[in-house]
């Protein structure tokens, strides 16, 4: 029977090509607009590390000034200062933890003729790689001693390894960062979490840094952060050491806490630490130390922008307009078909069979609209990409349709059109056949 309905529906759509095209187009544009905004929104709010996002915690201490919180209502600053980061690293409660910040270098390889270029680097602890399950192409990370003492070793990102060594296994070879020599101990495969969850203070969708340096290099080489630095206290910062000792926050800190018990112990440790510091006259605000897992942290740090939310809402209202439009057109169309449907009733079709026939036609419109809508969404995303994306960032990845999203689009198109078609289909299905047969 379904095949029969399908054949009849196709014929019916062909009977009024302009009207059918209008309905398909309305659904398609609605779906196209919705999927464009929804794709960006979905990818923006996607879990960058789903297999352990509930075990990874951003660590925040409320070291902010007494007058007002970092952000209303009572958010602690998103980053730590050097003193506190160093103190927290002394804990052995988290099985893995790492402090980190971003810096800039000029980089060269062993070839003196190589033109140096600027590169973003991440200075961090050895656990960074295991904490975030970064995939290695060659070699691995560094040992504990490189975090505590100066060891001139680096891990290269894939792009840096391609640029500096033509993609060869460069483990054991040397690069120069600001004219200092570093030995390569590992090379990462392509690793670009979206969003860049471990540092959302400096561009939510920036590309991952291309070079990783051990924590032990920071102080001896006086490495400065290339990210934001925020302070509340009027301090006289006249040297690098004064900066390290200041209340300025600029360090991201992450810990892996595998279960609630460990988390509770770690929270207690943080509170005890801040309690100690309060006695020394630091931490003027009430106790407010925060452990947020990846997804909590993304939402607390507003990774998905307001504009994006407004656009998603708007595009669903837009879809609603398209659907109301479709309800009207379907109603008119089905009423025009009423005599034929009445005849079918006389010849033995039940109300339900008429409704089914109508819904198959509506579903067909929905599917055609969905397919066309996917095409429009693809075009829409390309257009939005040129409007939004920067050339150097990682956000181009936000503007790509994938299979689950495409299926979602088809499902929305089908569901939306069936919803729009339900009332017209039922209304026409319930018309009494007797009155419609006499004159045609």
């Amino acid at each position, binding site marked *: 029977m379904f095949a029969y309905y399908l054949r009849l529906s196709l014929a019916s759509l062909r009977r009024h090509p302009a009207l059918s095209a209008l309905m398909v187009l309305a659904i398609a544009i609605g779906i196209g607009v919705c999927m464009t905004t929804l794709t960006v929104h979905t990818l923006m709010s996607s879990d960058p590390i789903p297999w352990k996002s509930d075990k990874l915690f951003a660590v925040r201490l409320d070291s902010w000034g007494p007058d007002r919180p970092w952000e209303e209502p009572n958010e602690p600053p998103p980053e730590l200062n050097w003193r506190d980061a160093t103190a927290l690293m002394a804990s052995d409660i988290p099985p893995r933890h790492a402090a980190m910040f971003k810096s800039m270098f000029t980089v060269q390889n062993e070839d003196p003729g190589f033109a140096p270029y600027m590169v973003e680097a991440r200075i961090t602890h050895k656990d960074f790689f295991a904490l975030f399950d970064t995939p290695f192409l060659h070699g691995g990370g560094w040992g504990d001693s490189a975090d505590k003492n100066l060891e001139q070793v680096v891990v290269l990102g894939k792009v840096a390894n391609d640029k500096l060594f033509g993609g060869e296994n460069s483990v054991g070879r040397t690069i120069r960062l600001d004219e200092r020599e570093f030995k390569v101990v590992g090379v990462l495969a392509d690793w670009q979490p979206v969003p860049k969850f471990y540092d959302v203070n400096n561009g939510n969708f920036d590309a991952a840094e291309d070079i990783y340096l051990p924590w032990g290099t920071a102080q001896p080489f006086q490495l400065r952060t290339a990210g934001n630095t925020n302070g509340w206290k009027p301090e*006289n910062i006249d040297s690098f050491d004064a*900066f390290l000792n200041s209340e300025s926050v600029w360090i991201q800190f992450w810990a892996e806490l595998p279960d609630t018990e460990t988390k509770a112990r770690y929270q207690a440790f943080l509170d005890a630490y801040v309690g100690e510091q309060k006695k020394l006259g630091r931490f003027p605000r009430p106790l407010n130390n925060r452990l947020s897992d990846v997804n909590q942290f993304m939402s607390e740090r507003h990774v998905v922008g307001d504009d994006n939310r407004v656009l998603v809402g708007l*595009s669903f*209202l837009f879809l609603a307009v398209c659907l109301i*439009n479709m309800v*009207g057109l379907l109603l008119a169309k089905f009423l025009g078909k009423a005599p034929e449907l009445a005849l079918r009733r006389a010849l033995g079709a039940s109300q339900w069979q008429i409704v089914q026939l109508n819904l198959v036609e509506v579903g067909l419109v929905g599917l055609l609209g969905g397919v066309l809508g996917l095409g429009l969404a693809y075009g829409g995303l390309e257009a939005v990409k040129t409007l939004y994306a920067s050339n150097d960032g990682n956000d181009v990845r936000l503007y790509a349709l994938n299979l689950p999203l495409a299926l979602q689009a088809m499902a929305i198109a089908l569901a939306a059109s069936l919803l729009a078609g339900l009332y017209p289909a039922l209304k026409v299905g319930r018309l009494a056949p007797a009155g419609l047969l006499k004159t045609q």
Partner: protein
Amino acid sequence: MSEIGPILRALLRNKTSALLIAGQCALTLAIVVNALFIIVARQELMQRPTGLDGENIVYVQSMGFTRDFRPEAVIREDLDLLRRLPGVVAASPINAIPLSGGGSSRGYSKEENTESEGIGAAYYELDEQGQKALGLNLTAGRWFRPEDVQALPENTDQYPYQAVISQAMARKLYGEDAPLGKRLYFQNGQRSVAIIGVVEHLPSAWVHAENFPYSVVYPRITTEKFIRYALRTEPGRRDELMPVVEQALRKANAGRIIRLRTQSEASARSYRGDKAMNIILASVSGLIVVITALGIVGLATFSVRRRTRQIGTRRALGASQWQVLRYFLVENWLLTTIGVLLGSGLAVALNLYLVETYSLERLNLWYLPAAAVLLWLLGWAAVYAPARRASRISPATATRNI
């Protein structure tokens, strides 16, 4: 307009179709009004005065990487070189690019030894050519003289003695009082500089921050490996001079990486999201209007087709073509008017929600009558062709069997 009564009654008998058109008009109005309101607000944001000669400013960023890099000497040589290039109007070291999203800010107050954090303002470091290099308009006092400018490393206990501030900053701090000669306090009012001049505009780096118009300029050069210069070219010569500048600096000192950026690029990057939002909102609004218009065309066509015989009868009974046309125009006007009434309420509700959730501005209510007029015109434009067809139905249709 004596027809309104019968038309209204006819519509009420076809409640569903009438409601659908009215509802669609209402939603369209609510969406378009709110989208337009956002668009205009963003447009105003992007068109705020900057006080900069935006089209002719280039920033040169130099990152020295050799260990024997001597910033102070390099800066002196670079400035010398840049200022002598034909086509360059002026050049000055600068610490941050206005409107670029990256810069430094600090709290300032007019009182000594205060507990308050004061007013957050961007601070810039420029030398004696800074005013000319950015094209700033000095409205009071004077700009820095060469002897005012201090070259200092980044971390130091020393700080300059004078400052020039933006007019918005002056007004914020001192109201109508003349700012010249007053002292500007920072670090909880423990330190201060003397205000020697006021510029009409000099915005901060953060285009979405409340402190956008507030800024303070010091006569200072920071001598570090990372150096930035602002230079202004003769009108229209920016793009032609950029490669020249880059090559000249490279040749002068090879132990560094040079990058050039224009003010226009930096501003465009900061406003990229707003511009994109506006384009998307405008496109979506346009599409909605088109879809709604096509919907009205479709429904009107159907309604004319269904009523062919009835219209023929009216014509046979003496209705003129114009009267038939008018019937459809009035019917459509009634529907859009219901849509306008519903839609105005909906638009205000949607705006209130946006105000609550995304702290948008309150809707300017003048948008509603404007949108109503637009919707009426749209409705008539959409219904005209079908109505015209209806008016041409032959009176003979009444007697023909169809």
